[in-house]
């Protein structure tokens, strides 16, 4: 940086001094309560967001489901149901509410389903195809409600995860939304850039299907 740039930056810093202030006691107390609540939650559940951000995201160009993989979607539904049935001793029990039908080729070999167990709705994703991400990246699952315009959906994060050491993904998150309102589930590879919305590459996409009534939503 040149001496002139230094001088102007210094003038700016003098003119715009950062005030000596601190957060109010009630806001500090509120944060401490949030931290305590999150710690208590972690003691009884796998790491998931405390309250998923429900921010409406505009301006993003979500890819529409590919018509070419519609057949794969149907197969994935059947395969997904079969998987659940084939593992009667599995820990993921409860009433099957929605099954994820693969809407992208990569999702066709992955399984996603939503069950209600002990009064709580839980989404589970299993896949052997999610590779290890570069340092500083992670996978994130999203519930998506198509918006009034194609590029303006509402998005709620279900949670973030990394594949297991064996390369296998088997994750579960509380599904704090009504899948009938959020008929799409996406998995993206996110950068740890502080952006709380989905900004990374989409790697999996599922349409949620109600086994009893067919496709929900759009």
């Amino acid at each position: 940086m040149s001496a002139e740039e230094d001088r102007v930056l210094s003038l700016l810093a003098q003119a715009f001094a950062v005030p000596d202030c601190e957060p109010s006691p009630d806001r500090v107390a509120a944060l401490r309560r949030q931290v305590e609540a999150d710690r208590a939650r972690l003691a009884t559940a796998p790491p998931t967001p405390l309250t998923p951000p429900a921010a409406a995201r505009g301006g993003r160009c979500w890819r529409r489901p590919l018509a070419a993989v519609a057949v794969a979607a149907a197969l994935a539904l059947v395969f997904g149901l079969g998987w659940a049935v084939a593992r009667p001793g599995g820990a993921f029990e409860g009433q099957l509410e929605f099954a994820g039908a693969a809407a992208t080729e990569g999702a066709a070999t992955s399984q996603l389903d939503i069950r209600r167990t002990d009064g709580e709705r839980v989404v589970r994703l299993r896949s052997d195809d999610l590779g290890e991400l570069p340092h500083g990246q992670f996978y994130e699952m999203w519930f998506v409600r198509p918006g009034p315009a194609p590029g303006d959906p509402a998005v709620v994060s279900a949670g973030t995860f990394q594949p297991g050491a064996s390369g296998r993904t088997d994750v579960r998150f509380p599904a704090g939304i009504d899948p009938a309102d959020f008929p799409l589930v996406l998995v993206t590879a996110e950068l740890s850039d502080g952006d709380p919305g989905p900004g990374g590459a989409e790697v999996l996409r599922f349409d949620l299907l109600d086994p009893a009534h067919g496709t929900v939503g759009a």
Partner: protein
Amino acid sequence: MIDIDPTSGGEPPLVEGALQRDPDAWEAIYRSAYPRLFSYARSRLADDGEAEDAVSETMARALQRIDAFRSEGVAVDGWLFGILRNIIFETHRKRSRPLPPAAAFEAGSPDLGAQDPLARTLAGEQAAAVHRAFALLSPNDREILELRVLGGLSSDEVAAVVGKRPGAVRMAQARALERLRDALAAVEAGDER
């Protein structure tokens, strides 16, 4: 600025505490970053209340995402500013209102405490001129300088916050400072437009 950069070797105590959901660690991070987060938010939002809310929301979202921060490779400060910046965008988007003109830095004021009255007057006049010159800059120029000065972020950290390459940010900063210098000269010459 708090020294809790996880890239500087080992897992710094505050980050480790934050990962363990230690309320004391979170409070320390909150208190340490608050003046700069608040100043930045105040410069881009309508009033103190909105700025306080934005900073509180920043900490709440940071708590939600702290597990993802572990492998992030950026300093906590830059990470928090990235979150805050998005919250500010969301706030403006909800209101469908553009960023305010640089009423910027109203929360800040020149540090004149230790100066004599004449020096204080001169410094005050100079600060006022800098404020007027700053208001003449484009929103992009103002943002980069705000993050540098109010946020206390390095060029690399600003780059991470705004999603640009460090070299591009350094170039943008140099141009912004050049335009500020020209604007300041115009203000001092009474030739503001």
